[in-house]
Protein backbone atom coordinates (compact mmCIF):
# COMPACT_ATOMS: atom_id res chain seq x y z
CA UNK A 1 0.00 0.00 0.00
CA UNK A 2 2.65 2.49 1.02
CA UNK A 3 4.82 1.29 -1.78
CA UNK A 4 2.02 2.00 -4.20
CA UNK A 5 1.73 5.56 -2.97
CA UNK A 6 5.37 6.18 -3.55
CA UNK A 7 5.96 4.46 -6.83
CA UNK A 8 6.18 6.34 -10.05
CA UNK A 9 4.85 3.46 -12.10
CA UNK A 10 1.49 2.05 -11.19
CA UNK A 11 2.18 -1.00 -13.31
CA UNK A 12 4.64 -2.05 -10.64
CA UNK A 13 1.80 -3.14 -8.40
CA UNK A 14 1.51 -6.87 -8.23
CA UNK A 15 -2.24 -7.22 -8.22
CA UNK A 16 -4.73 -8.20 -10.88
CA UNK A 17 -8.46 -8.43 -11.29
CA UNK A 18 -10.74 -10.63 -13.41
CA UNK A 19 -14.45 -11.30 -13.67
CA UNK A 20 -16.43 -14.33 -14.74
CA UNK A 21 -20.15 -13.61 -14.68
CA UNK A 22 -21.01 -12.48 -11.19
CA UNK A 23 -17.75 -13.70 -9.66
CA UNK A 24 -14.82 -11.35 -9.22
CA UNK A 25 -11.28 -12.66 -8.82
CA UNK A 26 -8.29 -10.80 -7.54
CA UNK A 27 -4.74 -11.96 -7.13
CA UNK A 28 -2.11 -10.37 -4.99
CA UNK A 29 1.44 -11.29 -4.13
CA UNK A 30 0.31 -13.88 -1.62
CA UNK A 31 -3.13 -15.18 -2.49
CA UNK A 32 -5.97 -15.46 -4.94
CA UNK A 33 -9.38 -14.40 -3.67
CA UNK A 34 -12.93 -14.44 -5.03
CA UNK A 35 -15.98 -12.34 -4.37
CA UNK A 36 -19.60 -12.98 -5.29
CA UNK A 37 -20.96 -9.68 -3.97
CA UNK A 38 -19.28 -7.17 -6.27
CA UNK A 39 -16.15 -6.97 -4.15
CA UNK A 40 -17.75 -6.26 -0.77
CA UNK A 41 -16.40 -9.43 0.80
CA UNK A 42 -13.60 -11.75 -0.34
CA UNK A 43 -12.81 -15.36 0.36
CA UNK A 44 -9.43 -16.94 -0.18
CA UNK A 45 -9.33 -19.35 -3.12
CA UNK A 46 -5.64 -20.29 -3.03
CA UNK A 47 -2.33 -19.25 -1.57
CA UNK A 48 0.33 -18.38 -4.12
CA UNK A 49 3.74 -20.02 -3.91
CA UNK A 50 6.13 -17.97 -1.79
CA UNK A 51 8.83 -16.14 -3.68
CA UNK A 52 12.50 -16.67 -2.81
CA UNK A 53 13.16 -12.98 -3.27
CA UNK A 54 12.47 -10.25 -0.74
CA UNK A 55 8.88 -9.12 -1.11
CA UNK A 56 9.90 -5.45 -1.42
CA UNK A 57 12.02 -6.03 -4.47
CA UNK A 58 9.49 -8.32 -6.10
CA UNK A 59 6.71 -5.84 -5.56
CA UNK A 60 8.60 -2.77 -6.65
CA UNK A 61 9.97 -4.22 -9.84
CA UNK A 62 7.25 -4.36 -12.46
CA UNK A 63 9.10 -7.06 -14.34
CA UNK A 64 9.23 -9.29 -11.26
CA UNK A 65 5.77 -8.82 -9.86
CA UNK A 66 4.42 -12.09 -8.41
CA UNK A 67 1.16 -11.66 -10.35
CA UNK A 68 0.93 -9.35 -13.31
CA UNK A 69 -2.21 -10.49 -15.07
CA UNK A 70 -5.22 -12.60 -14.28
CA UNK A 71 -7.76 -14.12 -16.67
CA UNK A 72 -10.62 -16.59 -16.45
CA UNK A 73 -11.06 -19.35 -19.03
CA UNK A 74 -14.12 -21.45 -18.35
CA UNK A 75 -13.74 -22.72 -14.80
CA UNK A 76 -10.00 -22.10 -14.69
CA UNK A 77 -8.35 -18.96 -13.36
CA UNK A 78 -5.03 -18.31 -15.07
CA UNK A 79 -2.38 -15.89 -13.87
CA UNK A 80 1.08 -14.86 -14.95
CA UNK A 81 3.92 -13.27 -13.04
CA UNK A 82 7.31 -13.94 -11.59
CA UNK A 83 6.29 -17.48 -10.57
CA UNK A 84 5.35 -18.32 -14.16
CA UNK A 85 1.99 -19.25 -15.57
CA UNK A 86 -0.31 -20.64 -12.89
CA UNK A 87 -3.75 -22.20 -13.15
CA UNK A 88 -6.35 -22.46 -10.43
CA UNK A 89 -9.01 -25.09 -10.99
CA UNK A 90 -11.37 -26.51 -8.36
CA UNK A 91 -9.27 -24.95 -5.61
CA UNK A 92 -6.05 -26.59 -6.86
CA UNK A 93 -3.22 -24.34 -7.94
CA UNK A 94 -0.85 -25.76 -10.52
CA UNK A 95 2.13 -24.33 -12.34
CA UNK A 96 1.82 -24.64 -16.11
CA UNK A 97 5.01 -22.78 -17.01
CA UNK A 98 7.94 -22.33 -14.63
CA UNK A 99 9.48 -19.18 -16.02
CA UNK A 100 8.74 -15.53 -15.31
CA UNK A 101 5.89 -14.36 -17.56
CA UNK A 102 4.71 -10.83 -18.22
CA UNK A 103 1.59 -11.10 -20.40
CA UNK A 104 -1.38 -13.43 -20.71
CA UNK A 105 -4.23 -13.75 -23.19
CA UNK A 106 -7.11 -16.17 -23.32
CA UNK A 107 -9.55 -16.79 -26.13
CA UNK A 108 -12.63 -18.91 -26.66
CA UNK A 109 -12.35 -22.69 -27.07
CA UNK A 110 -9.39 -23.10 -24.73
CA UNK A 111 -6.86 -20.79 -26.36
CA UNK A 112 -4.16 -19.56 -23.99
CA UNK A 113 -1.05 -17.54 -24.77
CA UNK A 114 1.65 -16.25 -22.47
CA UNK A 115 4.71 -14.13 -22.98
CA UNK A 116 7.33 -15.79 -20.80
CA UNK A 117 10.87 -14.47 -20.99
CA UNK A 118 11.68 -14.18 -24.67
CA UNK A 119 9.31 -16.96 -25.64
CA UNK A 120 5.74 -16.76 -26.79
CA UNK A 121 3.86 -19.83 -25.58
CA UNK A 122 0.52 -20.83 -27.03
CA UNK A 123 -1.94 -23.54 -26.15
CA UNK A 124 -5.12 -24.65 -27.84
CA UNK A 125 -6.23 -27.03 -25.10
CA UNK A 126 -6.67 -24.74 -22.11
CA UNK A 127 -3.03 -24.97 -21.05
CA UNK A 128 -2.62 -28.74 -21.02
CA UNK A 129 0.22 -28.41 -23.54
CA UNK A 130 2.13 -25.45 -24.95
CA UNK A 131 4.01 -24.74 -28.14
CA UNK A 132 6.81 -22.21 -27.91
CA UNK A 133 8.29 -19.78 -30.39
CA UNK A 134 10.55 -16.74 -30.07
CA UNK A 135 8.57 -13.68 -29.01
CA UNK A 136 8.59 -10.66 -31.36
CA UNK A 137 11.23 -8.15 -30.20
CA UNK A 138 9.87 -5.65 -27.69
CA UNK A 139 6.52 -7.44 -27.23
CA UNK A 140 4.88 -6.48 -23.93
CA UNK A 141 1.21 -7.35 -24.46
CA UNK A 142 -0.67 -10.06 -26.33
CA UNK A 143 -4.28 -10.61 -27.37
CA UNK A 144 -6.24 -13.18 -29.33
CA UNK A 145 -8.12 -11.99 -32.40
CA UNK A 146 -10.14 -14.93 -33.58
CA UNK A 147 -7.53 -17.66 -33.89
CA UNK A 148 -4.63 -15.24 -34.41
CA UNK A 149 -2.36 -13.93 -31.74
CA UNK A 150 -1.47 -10.23 -31.81
CA UNK A 151 1.41 -8.64 -29.90
CA UNK A 152 2.18 -5.03 -29.04
CA UNK A 153 5.16 -3.19 -27.61
CA UNK A 154 2.91 -1.38 -25.05
CA UNK A 155 1.06 -2.66 -21.99
CA UNK A 156 -2.36 -1.67 -23.29
CA UNK A 157 -3.76 -3.91 -26.00
CA UNK A 158 -7.28 -5.25 -26.53
CA UNK A 159 -9.48 -6.68 -29.23
CA UNK A 160 -12.84 -4.92 -29.23
CA UNK A 161 -16.06 -5.72 -31.02
CA UNK A 162 -16.55 -2.22 -32.43
CA UNK A 163 -13.14 -0.65 -33.00
CA UNK A 164 -11.19 -3.84 -33.64
CA UNK A 165 -7.70 -3.99 -32.24
CA UNK A 166 -6.89 -1.00 -30.03
CA UNK A 167 -3.76 -0.10 -28.13
CA UNK A 168 -2.69 2.61 -25.73
CA UNK A 169 -0.21 5.08 -27.14
CA UNK A 170 1.02 8.46 -25.97
CA UNK A 171 -1.68 10.25 -27.95
CA UNK A 172 -4.48 8.07 -26.61
CA UNK A 173 -6.24 4.88 -27.58
CA UNK A 174 -5.55 4.13 -31.23
CA UNK A 175 -7.08 1.50 -33.50
CA UNK A 176 -5.34 -0.44 -36.26
CA UNK A 177 -6.12 2.17 -38.89
CA UNK A 178 -4.48 4.80 -36.72
CA UNK A 179 -7.76 6.45 -35.73
CA UNK A 180 -7.70 7.87 -32.22
CA UNK A 181 -10.67 6.40 -30.41
CA UNK A 182 -9.91 8.12 -27.10
CA UNK A 183 -7.87 11.28 -27.11
CA UNK A 184 -6.54 10.91 -23.57
CA UNK A 185 -3.27 9.38 -22.37
CA UNK A 186 -4.13 5.84 -21.34
CA UNK A 187 -1.95 3.17 -19.79
CA UNK A 188 -4.03 0.02 -20.13
CA UNK A 189 -7.14 -1.18 -21.89
CA UNK A 190 -9.32 -4.25 -21.34
CA UNK A 191 -12.30 -5.49 -23.28
CA UNK A 192 -15.10 -7.89 -22.44
CA UNK A 193 -17.68 -8.24 -25.18
CA UNK A 194 -18.96 -4.81 -26.13
CA UNK A 195 -17.62 -3.28 -22.91
CA UNK A 196 -14.17 -1.73 -23.04
CA UNK A 197 -12.41 0.03 -20.21
CA UNK A 198 -9.27 2.12 -20.57
CA UNK A 199 -7.38 3.88 -17.83
CA UNK A 200 -4.42 6.12 -17.21
CA UNK A 201 -2.73 7.59 -14.16
CA UNK A 202 -5.59 9.88 -13.15
CA UNK A 203 -8.60 8.84 -15.17
CA UNK A 204 -10.57 5.96 -16.62
CA UNK A 205 -13.10 5.63 -19.43
CA UNK A 206 -15.76 3.11 -20.36
CA UNK A 207 -17.21 2.20 -23.71
CA UNK A 208 -20.35 0.13 -24.06
CA UNK A 209 -20.32 0.01 -27.87
CA UNK A 210 -17.17 -1.97 -28.46
CA UNK A 211 -14.67 0.87 -28.17
CA UNK A 212 -16.23 3.42 -30.51
CA UNK A 213 -17.39 5.99 -27.95
CA UNK A 214 -15.96 6.38 -24.45
CA UNK A 215 -17.50 7.99 -21.38
CA UNK A 216 -15.34 9.06 -18.46
CA UNK A 217 -15.55 7.30 -15.09
CA UNK A 218 -14.99 10.45 -13.03
CA UNK A 219 -14.46 8.79 -9.65
CA UNK A 220 -11.28 7.14 -10.97
CA UNK A 221 -9.44 10.43 -10.38
CA UNK A 222 -9.68 9.84 -6.64
CA UNK A 223 -7.88 6.49 -6.74
CA UNK A 224 -4.61 4.94 -7.80
CA UNK A 225 -5.97 2.38 -10.22
CA UNK A 226 -3.99 -0.85 -10.48
CA UNK A 227 -6.28 -2.91 -12.69
CA UNK A 228 -9.79 -2.65 -14.09
CA UNK A 229 -12.43 -4.88 -15.62
CA UNK A 230 -15.84 -3.93 -17.09
CA UNK A 231 -18.76 -5.04 -14.92
CA UNK A 232 -20.73 -6.10 -17.99
CA UNK A 233 -23.41 -3.47 -17.37
CA UNK A 234 -23.03 0.23 -16.79
CA UNK A 235 -19.66 0.49 -15.04
CA UNK A 236 -16.39 -1.17 -14.18
CA UNK A 237 -14.67 -2.74 -11.20
CA UNK A 238 -11.33 -1.22 -10.32
CA UNK A 239 -8.63 -2.70 -8.16
CA UNK A 240 -7.12 0.30 -6.41
CA UNK A 241 -4.69 0.96 -3.60
CA UNK A 242 -7.68 1.18 -1.23
CA UNK A 243 -9.42 -2.00 -2.37
CA UNK A 244 -11.82 -2.99 -5.12
CA UNK A 245 -14.31 -0.28 -6.01
CA UNK A 246 -17.16 -0.02 -8.49
CA UNK A 247 -16.94 2.92 -10.86
CA UNK A 248 -19.83 4.26 -12.91
CA UNK A 249 -20.10 6.96 -15.57
CA UNK A 250 -21.61 10.26 -14.52
CA UNK A 251 -25.41 10.13 -14.55
CA UNK A 252 -27.26 12.10 -17.18
CA UNK A 253 -27.93 15.23 -15.16
CA UNK A 254 -29.62 17.11 -17.97
CA UNK A 255 -32.84 15.18 -18.28
CA UNK A 256 -34.67 16.09 -21.47
CA UNK A 257 -37.87 18.05 -21.02
CA UNK A 258 -40.85 15.73 -21.00
CA UNK A 259 -42.64 15.62 -24.37
CA UNK A 260 -46.16 16.99 -24.68
CA UNK A 261 -47.50 13.43 -24.72
CA UNK A 262 -45.53 12.70 -21.57
CA UNK A 263 -46.80 15.84 -19.88
CA UNK A 264 -50.37 14.99 -20.79
CA UNK A 265 -50.14 11.48 -19.42
CA UNK A 266 -53.59 10.94 -17.97
CA UNK A 267 -54.85 9.79 -14.66
CA UNK A 268 -56.81 6.60 -15.36
CA UNK A 269 -59.53 5.64 -12.97
CA UNK A 270 -61.33 2.32 -13.27
CA UNK A 271 -64.27 1.59 -11.03
CA UNK A 272 -66.25 -1.65 -10.78
CA UNK A 273 -69.40 -1.83 -8.74
CA UNK A 274 -71.39 -5.00 -8.18
CA UNK A 275 -74.84 -4.93 -6.62
CA UNK A 276 -76.79 -7.96 -5.50
CA UNK A 277 -80.41 -7.96 -4.43
CA UNK A 278 -82.76 -10.81 -3.64
CA UNK A 279 -84.17 -10.85 -7.14
CA UNK A 280 -81.61 -8.99 -9.22
CA UNK A 281 -77.91 -8.40 -9.82
CA UNK A 282 -76.16 -5.39 -11.28
CA UNK A 283 -72.59 -4.73 -12.39
CA UNK A 284 -71.37 -1.23 -13.21
CA UNK A 285 -67.99 -0.51 -14.76
CA UNK A 286 -66.82 3.07 -14.95
CA UNK A 287 -63.59 4.32 -16.51
CA UNK A 288 -62.47 7.91 -16.10
CA UNK A 289 -59.58 9.67 -17.78
CA UNK A 290 -58.30 12.89 -16.26
CA UNK A 291 -55.83 14.95 -18.25
CA UNK A 292 -53.69 17.29 -16.12
CA UNK A 293 -53.12 20.41 -18.19
CA UNK A 294 -50.78 22.07 -15.71
CA UNK A 295 -47.04 21.45 -16.31
CA UNK A 296 -45.19 19.49 -13.68
CA UNK A 297 -43.07 21.42 -11.19
CA UNK A 298 -40.00 21.72 -13.43
CA UNK A 299 -38.27 24.61 -11.62
CA UNK A 300 -38.32 22.72 -8.33
CA UNK A 301 -37.07 19.54 -10.01
CA UNK A 302 -34.28 21.42 -11.74
CA UNK A 303 -33.27 23.02 -8.47
CA UNK A 304 -33.07 19.64 -6.74
CA UNK A 305 -31.04 18.14 -9.58
CA UNK A 306 -28.77 21.13 -9.59
CA UNK A 307 -28.16 20.82 -5.84
CA UNK A 308 -27.34 17.15 -6.23
CA UNK A 309 -24.99 17.80 -9.15
CA UNK A 310 -23.22 20.63 -7.34
CA UNK A 311 -22.77 18.50 -4.25
CA UNK A 312 -21.43 15.61 -6.32
CA UNK A 313 -18.89 17.78 -8.08
CA UNK A 314 -17.80 19.51 -4.90
CA UNK A 315 -17.19 16.15 -3.23
CA UNK A 316 -15.36 14.81 -6.26
CA UNK A 317 -13.17 17.90 -6.34
CA UNK A 318 -12.36 17.43 -2.67
CA UNK A 319 -11.52 13.77 -3.19
CA UNK A 320 -9.18 14.53 -6.10
CA UNK A 321 -7.45 17.22 -4.04
CA UNK A 322 -6.95 14.75 -1.17
CA UNK A 323 -5.56 12.15 -3.58
CA UNK A 324 -3.09 14.64 -5.06
CA UNK A 325 -2.07 15.67 -1.57
CA UNK A 326 -1.56 12.01 -0.62
CA UNK A 327 0.79 11.54 -3.57
CA UNK A 328 2.68 14.71 -2.72
CA UNK A 329 3.07 13.74 0.94
CA UNK A 330 4.23 10.24 0.00
CA UNK A 331 6.81 11.64 -2.41
CA UNK A 332 8.08 14.13 0.15
CA UNK A 333 8.34 11.37 2.76
CA UNK A 334 11.08 9.70 0.77
CA UNK A 335 13.25 12.76 1.05
CA UNK A 336 13.28 12.50 4.84
CA UNK A 337 16.45 10.92 6.17
CA UNK A 338 14.95 9.91 9.51
CA UNK A 339 13.10 6.57 9.07
CA UNK A 340 10.74 7.28 11.94
CA UNK A 341 9.67 10.65 10.62
CA UNK A 342 9.34 9.03 7.24
CA UNK A 343 7.02 6.41 8.74
CA UNK A 344 4.80 9.14 10.18
CA UNK A 345 4.76 11.00 6.88
CA UNK A 346 3.85 7.85 4.98
CA UNK A 347 1.10 7.18 7.48
CA UNK A 348 -0.24 10.66 6.75
CA UNK A 349 -0.16 9.87 3.02
CA UNK A 350 -2.14 6.70 3.69
CA UNK A 351 -4.65 8.66 5.73
CA UNK A 352 -5.13 11.20 2.94
CA UNK A 353 -5.65 8.38 0.42
CA UNK A 354 -8.26 6.82 2.73
CA UNK A 355 -9.96 10.21 3.09
CA UNK A 356 -10.06 10.58 -0.69
CA UNK A 357 -11.74 7.21 -0.96
CA UNK A 358 -14.19 8.06 1.86
CA UNK A 359 -15.22 11.28 0.13
CA UNK A 360 -15.57 9.89 -3.40
CA UNK A 361 -17.54 6.90 -2.16
CA UNK A 362 -19.95 9.22 -0.35
CA UNK A 363 -20.94 10.96 -3.58
CA UNK A 364 -24.75 10.87 -4.03
Amino acid sequence: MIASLTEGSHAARADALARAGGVLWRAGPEMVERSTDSGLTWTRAARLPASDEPADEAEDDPERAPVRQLAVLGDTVLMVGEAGLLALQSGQLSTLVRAPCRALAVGGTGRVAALCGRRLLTSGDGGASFQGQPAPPGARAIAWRGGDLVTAPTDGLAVTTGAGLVRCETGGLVDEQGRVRLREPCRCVRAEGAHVVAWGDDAAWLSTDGGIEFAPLPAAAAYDVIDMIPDGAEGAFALTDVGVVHLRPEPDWDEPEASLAGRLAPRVELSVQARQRAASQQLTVLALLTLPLDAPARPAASRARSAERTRTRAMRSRAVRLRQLARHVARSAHKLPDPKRRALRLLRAQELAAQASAVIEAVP
Partner: protein
Amino acid sequence: MTRRARALVLGVLCAGAGNAHATPTARLRHGNPAAELARVCVRRAGAQPERARSWLARVRLAAWLPELRLGAERDLGTREAIDPQDRARYGTYTLDELRVEGRATWRLDRLAFDPEELRASRETVRLAELRQDLALTVVRLYYERQRLAIESQLEAEAAPRETALRSARIEELSAMLEALCGPAAREEDQGRDQ
Protein backbone atom coordinates in the same frame (compact mmCIF):
# COMPACT_ATOMS: atom_id res chain seq x y z
CA MET B 1 2.27 0.30 26.80
CA THR B 2 -0.60 -2.17 26.52
CA ARG B 3 -0.42 -5.29 24.39
CA ARG B 4 -2.77 -3.72 21.86
CA ALA B 5 -0.68 -0.58 21.55
CA ARG B 6 2.49 -2.65 21.09
CA ALA B 7 0.82 -4.70 18.38
CA LEU B 8 -0.30 -1.55 16.61
CA VAL B 9 3.19 -0.13 16.73
CA LEU B 10 4.62 -3.27 15.19
CA GLY B 11 1.97 -3.33 12.47
CA VAL B 12 2.46 0.29 11.54
CA LEU B 13 6.24 0.20 11.62
CA CYS B 14 6.17 -2.87 9.39
CA ALA B 15 4.00 -0.93 7.01
CA GLY B 16 5.76 2.37 6.94
CA ALA B 17 9.15 2.49 8.55
CA GLY B 18 12.50 1.22 7.43
CA ASN B 19 13.64 2.01 3.95
CA ALA B 20 11.77 4.02 1.41
CA HIS B 21 10.27 0.92 -0.19
CA ALA B 22 9.16 -0.65 3.05
CA THR B 23 7.30 -3.93 3.08
CA PRO B 24 3.59 -3.42 3.48
CA THR B 25 1.99 -5.83 5.89
CA ALA B 26 0.00 -8.70 4.46
CA ARG B 27 -3.19 -6.95 5.53
CA LEU B 28 -2.26 -3.77 3.72
CA ARG B 29 -1.43 -5.44 0.46
CA HIS B 30 -5.05 -5.75 -0.51
CA GLY B 31 -6.25 -2.26 0.18
CA ASN B 32 -6.24 0.31 2.87
CA PRO B 33 -7.70 -1.05 6.14
CA ALA B 34 -9.13 2.33 7.16
CA ALA B 35 -10.92 2.73 3.83
CA GLU B 36 -12.29 -0.79 4.09
CA LEU B 37 -13.37 -0.24 7.69
CA ALA B 38 -15.11 2.98 6.66
CA ARG B 39 -17.06 1.05 4.00
CA VAL B 40 -18.18 -1.48 6.60
CA CYS B 41 -19.30 1.33 8.93
CA VAL B 42 -21.28 3.02 6.18
CA ARG B 43 -23.09 -0.23 5.40
CA ARG B 44 -23.68 -0.87 9.07
CA ALA B 45 -25.27 2.55 9.38
CA GLY B 46 -27.49 1.79 6.37
CA ALA B 47 -26.14 4.87 4.59
CA GLN B 48 -24.84 3.16 1.46
CA PRO B 49 -25.59 4.88 -1.87
CA GLU B 50 -27.59 1.89 -3.12
CA ARG B 51 -30.28 2.85 -0.64
CA ALA B 52 -30.78 6.30 -2.18
CA ARG B 53 -30.79 4.78 -5.68
CA SER B 54 -33.47 2.35 -4.61
CA TRP B 55 -35.63 5.24 -3.32
CA LEU B 56 -35.56 6.94 -6.69
CA ALA B 57 -36.19 3.67 -8.52
CA ARG B 58 -39.17 2.98 -6.29
CA VAL B 59 -40.62 6.43 -6.87
CA ARG B 60 -40.48 5.83 -10.64
CA LEU B 61 -41.91 2.35 -10.36
CA ALA B 62 -44.73 3.57 -8.14
CA ALA B 63 -46.35 5.46 -11.04
CA TRP B 64 -47.15 2.15 -12.73
CA LEU B 65 -48.89 0.78 -9.68
CA PRO B 66 -52.53 1.80 -9.17
CA GLU B 67 -54.08 3.20 -6.08
CA LEU B 68 -56.64 0.61 -5.05
CA ARG B 69 -59.85 1.32 -3.16
CA LEU B 70 -62.18 -1.46 -2.13
CA GLY B 71 -65.52 -1.09 -0.40
CA ALA B 72 -68.51 -3.18 0.54
CA GLU B 73 -71.93 -2.08 1.69
CA ARG B 74 -74.84 -4.20 2.82
CA ASP B 75 -78.36 -2.86 3.36
CA LEU B 76 -80.67 -4.92 5.56
CA GLY B 77 -84.21 -4.08 6.71
CA THR B 78 -87.75 -3.60 5.38
CA ARG B 79 -89.30 -1.13 2.98
CA GLU B 80 -93.00 -0.21 3.06
CA ALA B 81 -95.08 1.19 0.19
CA ILE B 82 -97.57 3.79 1.51
CA ASP B 83 -100.02 5.93 -0.43
CA PRO B 84 -99.20 9.55 0.47
CA GLN B 85 -102.86 10.58 0.09
CA ASP B 86 -104.66 8.26 2.39
CA ARG B 87 -101.68 6.77 4.17
CA ALA B 88 -102.82 3.31 3.05
CA ARG B 89 -100.15 0.66 3.23
CA TYR B 90 -99.83 -1.37 0.04
CA GLY B 91 -97.03 -3.71 0.87
CA THR B 92 -93.89 -4.48 2.79
CA TYR B 93 -90.57 -5.62 1.26
CA THR B 94 -87.58 -7.11 2.89
CA LEU B 95 -84.30 -5.42 1.99
CA ASP B 96 -81.11 -7.47 1.63
CA GLU B 97 -78.79 -5.69 -0.74
CA LEU B 98 -75.03 -6.18 -1.07
CA ARG B 99 -72.90 -3.66 -2.92
CA VAL B 100 -69.22 -4.32 -3.62
CA GLU B 101 -67.05 -1.67 -5.19
CA GLY B 102 -63.46 -1.73 -6.44
CA ARG B 103 -61.65 1.28 -7.81
CA ALA B 104 -58.16 1.41 -9.32
CA THR B 105 -56.50 4.69 -10.20
CA TRP B 106 -53.33 4.96 -12.28
CA ARG B 107 -51.65 8.34 -12.01
CA LEU B 108 -49.69 8.09 -15.22
CA ASP B 109 -48.81 11.78 -15.08
CA ARG B 110 -46.35 10.77 -12.36
CA LEU B 111 -44.29 8.97 -14.97
CA ALA B 112 -43.32 12.41 -16.23
CA PHE B 113 -42.79 13.93 -12.81
CA ASP B 114 -43.52 12.87 -9.28
CA PRO B 115 -43.19 15.42 -6.47
CA GLU B 116 -41.78 12.60 -4.35
CA GLU B 117 -38.66 12.74 -6.52
CA LEU B 118 -37.81 16.08 -4.97
CA ARG B 119 -37.97 14.66 -1.49
CA ALA B 120 -35.95 11.61 -2.51
CA SER B 121 -33.35 13.85 -4.13
CA ARG B 122 -33.02 15.99 -1.00
CA GLU B 123 -32.69 12.89 1.14
CA THR B 124 -30.07 11.51 -1.24
CA VAL B 125 -27.90 14.57 -0.68
CA ARG B 126 -28.43 14.37 3.08
CA LEU B 127 -27.51 10.71 3.09
CA ALA B 128 -24.36 11.46 1.09
CA GLU B 129 -23.32 14.03 3.68
CA LEU B 130 -23.97 11.58 6.48
CA ARG B 131 -21.94 8.94 4.66
CA GLN B 132 -19.07 11.33 4.15
CA ASP B 133 -19.06 12.45 7.79
CA LEU B 134 -19.16 8.89 9.05
CA ALA B 135 -16.42 7.60 6.73
CA LEU B 136 -14.14 10.55 7.46
CA THR B 137 -14.66 10.09 11.20
CA VAL B 138 -13.65 6.45 10.95
CA VAL B 139 -10.54 7.31 8.92
CA ARG B 140 -9.59 10.06 11.38
CA LEU B 141 -10.01 7.81 14.44
CA TYR B 142 -8.15 4.95 12.78
CA TYR B 143 -5.13 7.03 11.84
CA GLU B 144 -5.04 8.90 15.12
CA ARG B 145 -4.71 5.53 16.79
CA GLN B 146 -1.98 4.47 14.37
CA ARG B 147 -0.10 7.74 14.85
CA LEU B 148 -0.21 7.43 18.63
CA ALA B 149 1.07 3.90 18.37
CA ILE B 150 4.02 5.01 16.24
CA GLU B 151 4.75 7.94 18.53
CA SER B 152 4.80 5.58 21.49
CA GLN B 153 7.44 3.58 19.70
CA LEU B 154 9.41 6.66 18.65
CA GLU B 155 9.53 8.01 22.16
CA ALA B 156 10.55 4.92 24.05
CA GLU B 157 12.05 7.12 26.75
CA ALA B 158 8.84 9.09 27.36
CA ALA B 159 7.63 9.68 30.89
CA PRO B 160 5.44 6.88 32.30
CA ARG B 161 2.54 9.31 32.60
CA GLU B 162 2.81 10.21 28.93
CA THR B 163 2.96 6.55 27.95
CA ALA B 164 -0.05 5.69 30.08
CA LEU B 165 -2.05 8.58 28.62
CA ARG B 166 -1.20 7.46 25.09
CA SER B 167 -2.24 3.90 25.85
CA ALA B 168 -5.49 5.13 27.34
CA ARG B 169 -6.19 7.21 24.25
CA ILE B 170 -5.45 4.23 22.00
CA GLU B 171 -7.92 2.16 24.00
CA GLU B 172 -10.45 4.96 23.77
CA LEU B 173 -10.05 5.24 20.00
CA SER B 174 -10.41 1.47 19.61
CA ALA B 175 -13.62 1.57 21.64
CA MET B 176 -14.96 4.46 19.54
CA LEU B 177 -14.24 2.58 16.33
CA GLU B 178 -15.92 -0.51 17.68
CA ALA B 179 -18.98 1.49 18.67
CA LEU B 180 -19.19 2.93 15.15
CA CYS B 181 -18.34 -0.13 13.11
CA GLY B 182 -19.25 -3.03 15.37
CA PRO B 183 -17.46 -6.36 15.20
CA ALA B 184 -15.55 -5.40 12.03
CA ALA B 185 -13.45 -2.90 13.99
CA ARG B 186 -12.70 -5.50 16.65
CA GLU B 187 -11.75 -8.07 14.01
CA GLU B 188 -9.47 -5.58 12.32
CA ASP B 189 -7.87 -4.80 15.65
CA GLN B 190 -7.46 -8.48 16.52
CA GLY B 191 -6.03 -9.11 13.09
CA ARG B 192 -3.28 -6.66 13.89
CA ASP B 193 -2.68 -8.22 17.27
CA GLN B 194 -2.06 -11.53 15.55
